[in-house]
């Protein structure tokens, strides 16, 4: 697998994306490019529209306009359930662990869409907390364990673009480090990752580029290697 950063083909191209929840217009022309093998983060304050951007890619917002192209295919207008089948995996911010399913059933739920996904032993290696909990009811796991499970089940499917919405929320620092390790491993294996993060210290350790969102627009794009110079700007964006 070639090093993602050197490949210039855009895997995901978002142009002038508008999104609505009922009456309220939430995204006002978002433009984002993600190249094969990159790790890109979306930063921004609460309510900036990060989650909505992800949901728009998956086709689960009320209404959306503009263009979202994945490997050249237009996603807007495509039937919802076909989008993941192209090889896009989504880990929602509220985790979405199913309480009527056991941990194992949760893990095995998303259908494999491509070869090259992680095997169950590999997953246990990455997230040892999940081992031996197979028969526990999904939502009986602790908050952090649920987050791991939510990531783990996407890794199984072989999707090559993974959307992670705040994967570190509510996690202990060690686990965050582990997830950082996991993300880097995934990157090495050629996965493309879009990550929503509030914790930009974490983001800085793994990402190639950062998009900054504000009120439904992308207001800036900062390559990771220029992060240090842009720290002040970033602090104002994020209101730290």
């Amino acid at each position, binding site marked *: 697998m070639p090093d993602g950063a050197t490949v210039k083909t855009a895997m995901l191209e978002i142009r002038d994306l508008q999104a609505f929840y009922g009456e309220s217009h939430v995204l006002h022309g978002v433009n984002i490019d993600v190249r094969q093998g990159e790790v890109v983060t979306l930063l921004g304050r609460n309510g900036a529209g990060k989650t909505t951007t992800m949901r728009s890619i*998956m*086709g*689960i917002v009320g209404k959306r306009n503009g263009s979202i192209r994945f490997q050249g295919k237009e996603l807007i207008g495509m*039937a*919802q*359930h*076909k*989008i*993941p*089948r192209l090889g896009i995996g*989504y880990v*929602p911010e509220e985790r*979405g662990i*199913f*309480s*009527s*399913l056991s941990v194992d*059933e949760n893990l*095995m*739920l*998303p*259908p494999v*869409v491509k070869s090259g996904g992680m095997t169950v032993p590999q997953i246990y290696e990455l997230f040892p907390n999940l081992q031996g909990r197979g028969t526990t*009811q999904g939502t009986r796991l602790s908050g952090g364990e649920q987050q791991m499970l939510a990531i783990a089940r996407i890794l199984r*499917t072989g999707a090559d673009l993974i959307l992670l919405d705040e994967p570190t929320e509510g996690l202990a620092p060690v686990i965050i480090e582990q997830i950082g390790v996991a993300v880097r491993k995934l990157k090495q294996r050629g996965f493309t990752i879009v990550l929503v993060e509030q914790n930009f210290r974490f983001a800085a350790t793994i990402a190639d580029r950062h998009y900054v969102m504000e009120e439904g627009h992308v207001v800036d794009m900062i390559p990771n290697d220029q992060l240090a110079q842009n720290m002040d700007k970033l602090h104002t964006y994020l209101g730290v």
Partner: protein
Amino acid sequence: MFDLLGVPPQVLFGQLLLGLINGSFYALLSLGLAVIFGMLNVINFAHGALYMIGAFVAWLLLTKLGLGYWWALGLSPLIVGLLGVVLEKTMLSRLYKLDHLYGLLLTFGLALIMEGAFRHFYGVSGQPYPIPDALKGGQNLGFMFLPNYRGWVVVASLIVCFGTWFAIERTRLGAYLRAATENPVLVQAFGINVPVMITATYGFGVALAGLAGVLAAPIYQVSPLMGSNLIIVVFAVVVIGGMGSILGAIVTGLGLGLLEGLTKVFYPEASNIVVFVVMAIVLLIKPAGLFGRER
């Protein structure tokens, strides 16, 4: 020869067997309800009415088109299932994001409409439906005379029940269904066509009711009211078994059939309430039902 509380053992065996037969009806009907509740979170009050329609379709096929029992066995569940698909697509599907109670209220209204319409057009005394020739007659088991048709009912419904149980509890499909009940949007985001799956499930659940209707037609009068009394008992069965639990519905259906059979011998007056008494007791001891999981 000794009597059990004044009841000769042959009679008792006979009654137990009859209880099992009734139980298999309960099982089939409550299975459909459990599938629908478990997957759609809808208490399908229209189940009794759809059971009635299943029987009526069989009767109409016979009288209007001359198609006999075996045709009806295939066609009637199909037609009822399609009706279910239409109901789901046009009405029920709008209610999933609301409180479960709305599903109950909607199907309550639908049941009134369906029963009322059939009453209006066909009266209430019921229509005769003959036992198919191949299943006429019976076996003398020594302790009782078992009509062949009743034997067939038990076999047919047990096969369907356990087939369904296997499909839902032991296959991936079941996991999708349960997950979709909880969070359809996310399951969709995993690449599964949830609306179609849910519609199909409802269709399947009511087709089971239709099938029960065809099986019942030769035994009971085909009447618009045949479902309305039964449905309350079947509800109780589903609640006792644990709402949404497939196995619970089947086992409880059979078990309550037996229990009811015994009540009919020892204290027949109570045979209609025994189910409710059991339900109250079970819920006190095990709130989620015998096989239900607490959510």
